[in-house]
């Protein structure tokens, strides 16, 4: 009997052993074994989505992709580390010491050496057939027009996980649209790594990034950048910007700022230049603002272009004394002459006629105090003080553009409303977004009517007169009707205005009867002359002259 029990016990023990072993394989280490098995017969890889292009209005790419590679090392497979370093350092343009430090890190089986290496460098390295050196595709951005339109485009860097991410400009604003969605391929493979076509397969196609078609005309962009650089050098300015907009649509035809950077080598530049000053930099607009305050007063019918006022001498507002820019006074002058002579005294009169409440209302209506919603990442908007905080001196200084901060894009959009029959337009960089399913047009957006079309026409005539009879008339191209206004604003430093430092500007549009463009030129701290009429205005007219030629607009 005991023998039967012994055999029975033996079989039970064997049975338990088998059960136990099976439990171990299927439950305890089941996941690991399943993964190991899958790695032997499963092929799984990412199908990367190509980043979308950014194209100028003529379809020419301003930012596109080019082949690039992640170069990596597998230190345990390197036979002679010194020879390895000496061979690859020149091609990767890296210091040999840096490479040696990377590959000598203990217990590392895979280390990245260089991101987004050029095709030529990789071709060189591949020719050597170096053991322990590998390559993985990592496309990078290419800018056919080099550093042109850097502040419009922004650049592509890495996010926290090492994936491409757009920063600043359009790359930042439209990052989600541009980056697309990666796909995935999963299928069985044979011993040689070739796919088994009858096996299981799962494929999710990548969705490539969308292509952005801009309003920006690359010819105008290049012209504007070249002339701005020449202007900066000629007038000895520290900074400068030019923005050209189509007043009817709000499309930005060109936008340039100095100092700038090269988006392909953005790391070599100071981070302070990444931000686009046209949308994020604030300044006091000075006399260019007078056209807007005048438009508001005309729209409220508190005066007409022929209304006269007495410009007899300085005006006292509380404890402050307000003078004309040249301390000259002309007696009885009309409102048109107030703009022609850029009279601060005249504008104090206009401001008082308009009143505090109406002025604040029109400031908001012209778009100041809130972002324009332009499609560039880093837009900001200086705040406008609350209505209750406006004192008499604030009303007086704001009427001639001091004591109030705006961004260049706000200013050009506001003046654009006068060129567009009184309608304020939302400024836009992108005209059309294309993807594999088709194109979607971004329609021009009217924000609101600010002034009537009659008032817009009247102010246009006053601005034409300000150009023809103002301080900058010497620089104006002959035979063209240009509506514009000069501006010279002192720069506030530590609570007071610096007498020597100014921001010279000129804003205007042309041809005045059927405007093709509205443009703002700003120059910060010009050394040759502090006045807008002697620096920003001639630069404006130089660019305008070339725009007339480019568009084939003859002089009359």
């Amino acid at each position, binding site marked *: 009997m005991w023998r039967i029990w012994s055999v029975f016990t033996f079989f039970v023990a064997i049975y338990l052993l088998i059960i136990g072993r099976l439990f171990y394989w299927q439950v305890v280490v089941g996941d690991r074994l399943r993964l190991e098995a899958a790695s032997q017969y499963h092929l799984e890889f990412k199908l990367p989505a190509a980043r979308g292009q950014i194209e100028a209005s003529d379809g*020419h*790419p301003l930012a*596109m992709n*080019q*082949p690039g590679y992640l170069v990596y090392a597998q230190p345990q497979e390197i036979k002679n580390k010194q020879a390895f370093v000496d061979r690859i350092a020149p091609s990767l343009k890296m210091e040999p010491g840096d490479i040696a430090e990377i590959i000598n890190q203990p217990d590392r089986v895979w280390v990245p050496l260089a991101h987004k290496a050029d095709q030529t460098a990789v071709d060189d390295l591949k020719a050597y057939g170096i053991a322990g050196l590998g390559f993985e595709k990592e496309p990078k951005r290419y800018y056919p*027009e080099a550093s042109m339109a850097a502040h419009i485009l922004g650049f592509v860097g890495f996010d926290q996980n090492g994936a491409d991410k757009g920063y600043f400009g359009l790359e930042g604003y439209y990052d989600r649209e541009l980056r697309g969605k990666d796909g995935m391929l999963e299928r069985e493979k044979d011993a040689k790594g*070739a*796919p088994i*076509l009858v096996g299981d397969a799962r494929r999710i196609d990548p969705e490539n990034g969308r292509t952005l078609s801009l309003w920006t005309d690359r010819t105008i962009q290049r012209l504007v950048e070249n002339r701005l650089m020449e202007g900066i050098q000629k007038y000895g300015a520290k900074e400068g910007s030019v923005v050209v907009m189509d007043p009817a649509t709000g499309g930005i035809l060109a936008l340039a700022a100095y100092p700038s950077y090269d988006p392909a080598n953005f790391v070599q530049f100071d981070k302070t230049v990444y931000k686009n000053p046209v949308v994020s930099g604030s300044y006091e607009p000075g006399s260019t603002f007078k056209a807007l305050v005048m438009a508001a007063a005309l729209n409220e019918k508190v005066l007409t272009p022929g209304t006269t006022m007495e410009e007899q001498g300085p005006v006292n507002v509380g404890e402050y004394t307000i003078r004309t820019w040249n301390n000259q006074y002309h007696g009885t002058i009309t409102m048109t002459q107030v703009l022609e002579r850029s009279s601060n005294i005249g504008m104090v009169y206009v401001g008082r006629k308009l009143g505090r409440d109406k002025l604040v209302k029109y400031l908001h209506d012209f778009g100041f105090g809130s972002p324009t919603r332009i499609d560039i990442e880093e837009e900001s908007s200086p705040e406008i003080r609350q209505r209750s905080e406006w004192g008499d001196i604030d009303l007086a200084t704001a009427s001639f553009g001091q004591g109030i901060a705006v961004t260049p894009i706000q200013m050009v959009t506001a003046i654009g409303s006068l060129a567009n029959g009184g309608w304020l337009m939302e400024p836009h960089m992108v005209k059309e977004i294309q993807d594999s399913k088709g194109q979607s047009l971004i329609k021009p957006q009217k924000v609101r009517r600010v002034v009537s079309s009659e008032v817009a026409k009247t102010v246009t005539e006053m601005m034409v007169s300000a150009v023809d009879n103002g301080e900058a008339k010497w620089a104006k191209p002959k035979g063209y009707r240009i509506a514009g206004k000069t501006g010279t604003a002192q720069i506030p430093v530590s609570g007071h205005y610096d007498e020597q430092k100014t921001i010279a500007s000129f804003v205007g549009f042309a041809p005045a009867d059927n405007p093709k463009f509205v443009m703002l030129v700003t120059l910060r701290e010009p050394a040759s002359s502090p006045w807008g009429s002697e620096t920003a205005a001639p630069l404006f007219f130089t660019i305008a002259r070339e725009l007339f*030629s480019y568009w084939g607009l003859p002089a009359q």
Partner: protein
Amino acid sequence: MQTLLRFLPLGIIALIILQFVISNEIAGLGEKVALLDDQTQTLADENTLLSQKVASASSLVAIASRAHELGFVESAKYMTVGPEQFPVAVLGNAR
């Protein structure tokens, strides 16, 4: 109906054999497909590279540089001719 039922097993067996033959044929094509995938990728890369070269060659930077080499200079002064100053063309009598 009975004839059909009689031939049904034969049909099933024939289809199974056919599946074996086709699977066998396809299974060996994996290497070829991998090769074609590689070629597709190589051509796509080449296409990207060529697009880049076309964009580079037709860029304003390249055109301006080439124009400069060929002796073109920017005109400092120019005049425009309005319609009223060009009656022959306006009237369509130009030959």
